């Protein structure tokens, strides 16, 4: 009788400790998940900012200015154009 009780007590203790450990682990994992989600949000914000930056660099006014002034490009005159028929 006593032996059985001791055994049960040991099992109960082990289960209780296991419960505590599981809870602790769950919380740790949750914190980690939380951190990753936070990172995801901040990356999304950064993505938006990069898109904005890209759009700003790619403004047509800026492209035209660089093409004209730095690269010395100009639209072809009408006589310099050759239309190519698409192969059918």
């Amino acid at each position, binding site marked *: 009788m006593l032996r059985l009780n001791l055994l049960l007590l040991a099992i109960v203790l082990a289960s209780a400790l296991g419960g505590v450990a599981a809870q602790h682990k769950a919380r740790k994992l949750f914190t980690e998940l939380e951190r990753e989600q936070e990172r995801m949000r901040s990356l999304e914000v950064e993505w938006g900012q990069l898109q904005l930056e890209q759009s700003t660099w790619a403004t*047509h006014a800026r*492209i035209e200015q660089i093409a004209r002034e730095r690269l010395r490009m100009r639209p072809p005159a009408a006589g310099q154009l050759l239309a190519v028929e698409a192969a059918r």
Partner: protein
Amino acid sequence: MKFGNNPLLSQRLPAWRARFVATLILSAFCLLAARSLWLQVVNNDFLQQKGESRYSRVIELSATRGRIADRSGDMLAVSTPVKSIWAIPEDARLSPAQARALAALLQMDVRELNRRLASEKDFVFVKRQIPPDVAEKVAALELPGIHQQREFRRYYPSGEVTAHVLGFTGVDDAGQEGIELAFEAALAGRAGSRRVIKDRLGRIVEDVDSVRPPQDGRDITLALDAKVQYLAYTHLKQAVAEHKAKAGGIVVLDVRSGEVLALANLPAFNPNNRVRLNGAQLRNRALIDVFEPGSTLKPFTAALALEKGRFRFDTPIQTAPGRLTIGSATIHDTHAYGTLTLAQVIQKSSNVGVAKVAATLAPEEMWRMYDELGFGQPLGLGFPGEAAGRLRPFKTWRPIEQATMAYGHGISVTLMQLARAYLAFARDGDVIPLSLTRLESPPVAGKSIFSAQTAREVRAMLEMAVQPGGTAPQARIAGYRVAGKTGTARKLEAGQYTDRYVAAFVGFAPASDPRLIVAVMIDEPAAGKYYGGEVAAPVFARVMAGSLRTLGVAPDAPLAPVQVAHDAAAVPDSL
């Protein structure tokens, strides 16, 4: 004597005393049990709440506003988080050095800062929408009573080029003008919230009850083509400056799908920096301002006459001596042309000729056509403040009014309505609804107004109008056949025609298989020239040439240089 032998102890107490005390104690226990039952089971909300407030927190989950992109996915409007600095004035007792440091970081005047902090209110914004890195430096100062709040700020990379189409949002990130307002429901996000348990270190360890996820706003893809829009805006700007005009507007439509590829107005504003805005800058003229379209309506009168079989393409019309008296009013032409065919009437833009054509038409027929073309009713694009224009009921038309209406006076339209009406010629006689957003598939068929035959004949007339001998040779483009019509209308003010003008040009290309419609309107050109063919047609030509090239439309005319009769203005072509 021992205590145990005390005679008092042998005295028997009455039984009720013991029972009385027992009952008293028992009822006290019952009372306690009832109270604890009340607190913990029946009415436990209050304590539960108090307990939770020790460790659980509600976190706001902010949602971002949808982005706006052009048809190829280039971003036109993006929201990005910024910080706002706010203060509880009562707590914010800053030393002069602290105030100076804060003001320097926020690029504010110290006096202005102190004035705000001296406020009687419980809550004041010190400065809204500052970049996150500045906000971090402010937080590092650890000033008492100064707090931060996360907000969103909207940026428009293309600035004033797309200002009128996109509109803008207020400081609370809600749309106030343009697309931002028209599509507010789709663009706006809905903030969510969650209740969590935090541990001693402030880390979130668990979600309690349900999480309400934030809903980000939907992204919107416009029909706008950023390149075409840029071409349209810069060339309009050039022309408005060159002709010292008061204002201007331009619209580019895709003939096949009815999509609005470009929409620009001047004067414009920079949506990223909206200090010192005035009403004139904000007006989206192409949609909310009406004007008398003038001669740009003549082709519709001609089309109706063709459609009803009253005239043929080459029916001769006597326009000499260049004026025509109807009732007490007289209509004038700029020159006396003599006998012209119907096509030449359109080519030369003869008022007398068109008035004579209109005289063969019933007012009801003309009214019905204008009505079907959409004049006098808003386009229904969902744009805020869209104007309907004015088309009076035909029963009130006097003969002179019918004659002037045939060449675009006594009727008013928006530039967008005018451009859309030209769809009837550019397509084979039908008009389709316009769209500000990109369409996956074009509308199948529109409302038919003219027969395909009529549309073809009017196209031929409009092509003649841009040939030498027409009113707008400057509208021609190398490599493409162009068709279009000029308009020069005196402005009506307080019921009187003034000597200020609206110069307009509406046209399409390539004429063999139209792809684009461009409509240009220049308000009050004041540098000498005011004819639509001189002021608006060159803008049309540059924008059309650039747009056709951008869209890769195959040329339908030889690529020989165009012989332009006027002295070629020293305006560079845009890339």
